[in-house]
């Protein structure tokens, strides 16, 4: 399939859906507080552009920080696990517990602990909790996946633990880490929005709150505009990380081989 077709087909579908949507809303006189037409959403977007953008920036900043902290701490802990079996045995079950407990159920507790004062820190913590585990889990798997024969070869040539970690285990884990980053990038965004919902009016600056408030006021078109922005951010994060993955792996990894179709 050629490249232009790959962009043209989904684009055409999108335009077709928007047109039918616009037509259906006008034709059946659907009230604006139930389903606004695309043109109304666009209008709401333009009118509230400043507010939406500053709200988005507040949220996005926390997403990026949470993601970077999750990446650094996940990789660091995985390295620790790979060096010490005891650490892994002791901590891994708790890391799993942290992951499987739904973030929405922990959020109120975290809010209380932070007294609704340092709300950014609370949002950061909650987003980190959801973004952290895929990094930890995949990096741990990657560090354990080094070729047995290569490990033997490294030992034969007198490699230290540090050399084995740095020259063999880390590069082996790289594709695993990059895969996890694509998952965690999206999860960090979800984490911040969920936390903003849980915080309610405690956080009155982020895009999650904008959605809540617009909903309360039945400004459905603004809700849609904010939702559209959020998916745009989510997609951008995904493509940015996919680009990074391609740039780092394209020369050597099987996953980046050109597909024969």
């Amino acid at each position, binding site marked *: 399939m050629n490249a232009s077709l790959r962009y043209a087909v989904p684009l055409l579908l999108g335009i077709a859906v928007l047109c039918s949507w616009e037509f259906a809303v006008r034709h059946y006189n659907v009230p604006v507080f139930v389903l606004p037409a695309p043109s109304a959403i666009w209008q709401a977007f333009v009118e509230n552009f400043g507010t939406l953008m500053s709200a988005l920036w507040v949220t996005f900043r926390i997403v990026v920080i949470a993601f970077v902290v999750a990446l650094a701490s996940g990789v660091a802990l995985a390295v620790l696990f790979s060096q010490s079996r005891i650490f892994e045995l002791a901590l891994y079950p708790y890391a799993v517990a942290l992951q499987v407990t739904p973030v929405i159920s922990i959020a109120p507790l975290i809010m209380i602990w932070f007294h609704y004062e340092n709300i950014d820190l609370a949002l950061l913590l909650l987003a980190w909790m959801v973004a952290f585990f895929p990094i930890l889990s995949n990096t741990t798997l990657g560090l354990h996946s080094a070729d047995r*024969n290569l490990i033997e070869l490294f030992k*034969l040539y007198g490699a230290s633990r540090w*050399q084995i970690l740095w020259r063999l285990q880390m590069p082996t884990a790289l594709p695993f880490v990059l895969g996890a980053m694509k998952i965690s990038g999206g999860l960090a965004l979800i984490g911040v929005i969920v936390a903003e919902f849980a915080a309610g009016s405690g956080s009155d600056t982020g895009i999650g709150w904008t959605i809540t408030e617009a909903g309360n006021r039945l400004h459905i078109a603004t809700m849609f505009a904010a939702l559209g922005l959020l998916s745009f951010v989510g997609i951008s994060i995904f493509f940015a990380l996919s680009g990074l993955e391609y740039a780092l792996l394209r020369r*050597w*990894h099987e996953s980046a081989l050109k597909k024969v179709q």
Partner: protein
Amino acid sequence: MTALVALSGVSKSFDNGVEAFGPVDLQIGSGEFVSLVGPSGCGKSTMLRVVADLLAPSAGTVGFPDGRPEIAFVFQEPTLMPWARALENARLPLDLNSVPRAEADARAEAALARFGLKGFERAFPRELSGGMKMRVSIARALAARPKLLLMDEPFAALDEFTREALNDDLLSLWHEDELTVLFVTHSVFESSYLSTRVIVMTPRPGKITADIALSQPTARGPHYRLSPEFGDIARRVSSALQQTTGSTA
């Protein structure tokens, strides 16, 4: 001839109770090309790993009368780092021993050129054919300037033409560098073609059942593979192997 490696009463059994091989007594002299042949699962590869000190023997000792020589190991698979270029792969033993970069590059380049890979220094493993990957693997072993080269069925996965070409290259290398080679194979023909000495092992736990000394392989002319002399050697190795496995095939 002084022994480079001396195994005395060496055996290896694993934690699960499987006895891999032994006890084995074996002396390998400096400059020999020794092939280990035997039915699959007879502990040949395990024995190689014990000699390389990658596995500790369960009993007996592996001695090096003149001190432990520089040892290189070549696996059945090329075992290259896929993220590293051919030169970086060949340079690995030198990097691990903190040889200065310029010297390491020069030695790795020379080793690659020696094995017909001039111009492929910057290629990644996946850009190379199976035979070329194996050449990089051998170049990596060479870069370490070993005295003792341990090879675990290195050419088993290659097609016949590639394998024959690599056999000849390995022989000239062995001759020119005065290497000592311990070569595990399950191919009667390969062992007969390459070796100065063929050791035949019994099924697991592997013991030495025949120790066949051959003429100098480098004295063998071209078309040697088709000569009656080669046929005789192959027959001797083959019949020793058949006696151990009890097969009449």
